[in-house]
């Protein structure tokens, strides 16, 4: 890594430092490579985000993952937690597959007795977030003066520093997180890296789950 200062480049974080041309170019390359990777897989299949709502009963996770594995679809990321509706769990799963497959997967999931709703989305239909932690070596960080700049340029935070290691936290979309990681990793400073599963909420103005539950409640009243 050389230190040719490019005066035209502005660092948005401190306004004083400037990035090297090379570092920048490399960062861009990495980013675009990753961006491509995360939008479509080698077969040209898009990445779908599945939002699955279920009752909070044991064994649901393995039923849901079984729907994917049986149809040879890899799960890229998975997040499970309580939803805003009491007693309802929300699974956020991402997978590369054809739209036909995405449709089939959601129908098969809804077929499981305790699954309330399953739907799939492309990235433009949802707000997406992921978070990550990168543990880097403090001595190596001190040798590599670009580390601080890379962290700042990625809008990441150092949440802890001690003489042995520092912990960087970065929240954002997959491509940005991976770009930060790739850039730091190239400097050989990374000790550990962890990335969360994706979480997502829909951009729709209609809350489909609430409507579904209300509809089911009406049906229950009618049946009584």
């Amino acid at each position, binding site marked *: 890594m050389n230190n040719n200062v490019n005066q035209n480049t502005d660092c948005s974080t401190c306004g004083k430092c400037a990035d090297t041309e090379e570092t920048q170019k490399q960062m861009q390359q990495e980013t675009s490579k990753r961006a491509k990777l995360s939008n479509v897989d080698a077969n040209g299949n898009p990445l779908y985000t599945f939002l699955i709502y279920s009752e909070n009963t044991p064994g649901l996770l393995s*039923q849901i993952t079984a729907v994917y594995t049986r149809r040879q679809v890899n799960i890229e990321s998975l997040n499970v937690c309580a939803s805003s509706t009491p007693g309802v769990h929300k699974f956020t799963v991402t997978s590369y597959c054809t739209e036909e497959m995405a449709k089939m997967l959601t129908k098969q999931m809804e077929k499981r*007795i305790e699954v309330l709703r399953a739907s799939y989305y492309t990235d433009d239909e949802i707000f997406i977030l992921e978070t990550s932690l990168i543990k880097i070596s403090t001595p190596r960080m001190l040798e590599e003066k670009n580390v601080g700049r890379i962290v700042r340029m990625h809008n990441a935070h150092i949440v802890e520093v001690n003489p042995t290691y520092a912990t960087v936290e970065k929240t954002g979309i997959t491509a940005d997180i991976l770009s930060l990681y790739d850039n730091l990793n190239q400097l050989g400073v990374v000790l550990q890296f962890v990335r969360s599963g994706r979480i997502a909420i829909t951009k729709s103005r209609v809350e489909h789950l609430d409507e579904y539950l209300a509809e089911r409640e009406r*049906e229950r009243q009618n049946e009584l």
Partner: protein
Amino acid sequence: MAERISGAEALMRSLVNEGVETLFGYPGGAIMPVYDALYDYRDRLNHILVRHEQGAVHAAQGFARVSGKVGCAIVTSGPGATNTVTGIADAMIDSTPMVVICGQVGTSLLGTDAFQEVDVVGVTSPISKWSYQIRRAEDVAWAVSRAFYIAKSGRPGPVVLDFAKNAQTAMVDYEPAKVDFIRSYQPIPPMDKDVIKKAAQMINESVKPFVLVGQGVELGDAREELKEFLEKAQMPAGCTLLGLSALPSDHPLNMGMLGMHGNLGPNVMTNQCDLLIAVGMRFDDRVTGNLKTYAKQAKIIHFDIDPSEIDKNVKVDLAVLGDCKQTLAAVTELLDETTHQSWIDGFKPYAEKEYNKVIDKAIHPKSGALLMGEVVRKVSEASNNEAILVTDVGQNQMFGCRYFKFTKGRSVVTSGGCGTMGFGLPAAIGATFGAPERTVCLFCGDGGLQMTIQELGTIMEQGAPVKIILLNNNYLGNVRQWQAMFFNHRYSFTPMMNPDYELIAKAYGIPAKTVVERKDLDAAIKEMLSTDGPYLLQCAVLEEDNVLPMTPPGANVDCMMLEV
């Protein structure tokens, strides 16, 4: 006032509440409290002791298929539970309502590799409609009611209850429960009026409509609705293996059986119709053959209760979701009364061709060894075409289904989606309990019979009037046929040395006879049908016979071989 009883007794009460009268089971350590409670319920619950747990589930399936009720099996934990796995998978793919109750070790031992502990929910959840572990006596009433509701509603299927031993022994203030609503489960998708109109319009515009009749028609008790639907617009139909008795065999619009060993006409015409109307069937690969060329010329309408079946194998132009008893009737109302005479007449040459090249030879042989086809047709006719057909798997199954005739609904019990050898004998036992007033004829092979032959003990003990027709070809015939056709006649482990089946029957006190010569067949069948109780009729059939016609696996649906 709630009564204080054990979880095991709560199970008995709950079963009685669900209307259960017949159970098939086998006891063991982890289910002993239940068997102890059962001892006091013998007046209300008829428990049939099978000889192997696989027999219990297949018997429950046979019971369910002919009665329309939920079949019920009770077994112990560990090996008892794993022995039911085949039947659970079979019931799942063939949409058979069944509740399997397995014992389980106490909750304090779960996860410790305790004696006869198996993760039954883990094993069965991918192959069942619902699988649940009862860990507290308080949950028994709720779980049982929910289990029966799930098993029988919507598209039926098997449910597993894994009953921990401590929940069996713990005391509970029993109150009956009634589950008929689960918010995350919509058994019948609502009927859409616009879709009904659109379907009727497509049918009214069609010149060459062809209807595929599946088991959904039987499961939905929609045989009458189907008939009216077909008759009003005079539409020809073909039946799947499991849908064979949904339409009387001799109905003028019944063009025969679909699929790999089905009839020529319905298979060929699938690729000539302009509108394909599938009712309660799932486009199994044994029905469609090569999907790339399947009914490409036609528009397709799919009536089904299960949304996940839509577009699964075959992309359709219109999905009519709902209970076919209602959707068929609703569409029928909007149909024009028409005839499609020339279209219907178009099936005739194929029927004649098949008759001359295949059927006549199969059912009216002049010389040589007995043939499976002739035996099946003779038994069918001798029972006035009113009997229940149960088959095992293999050539016996295909000949059975091709040449048996049906006049009544719920008359075919065969393992379709799973093709489970060993299904036949126990399923036939179950059928005799599910339809005690009817004759039950089982056709099985020498291979399949031996897979669950121990159930002859159940037949003996119960006097279950199963008419067992053993089509003995001394081969694993179906596999041998494939070896002959696709593996250069290399009969790798398909010839089989057989025991003396008459002696075996004798050991179980079951009357038996062997027919070798054609001239003795009629009398033997007559004797079998007029004998009270069980009977074993062994027919020494042609060893190297082939089931024809045949669509080779993966070939186009209209490319049927009529000879080898």
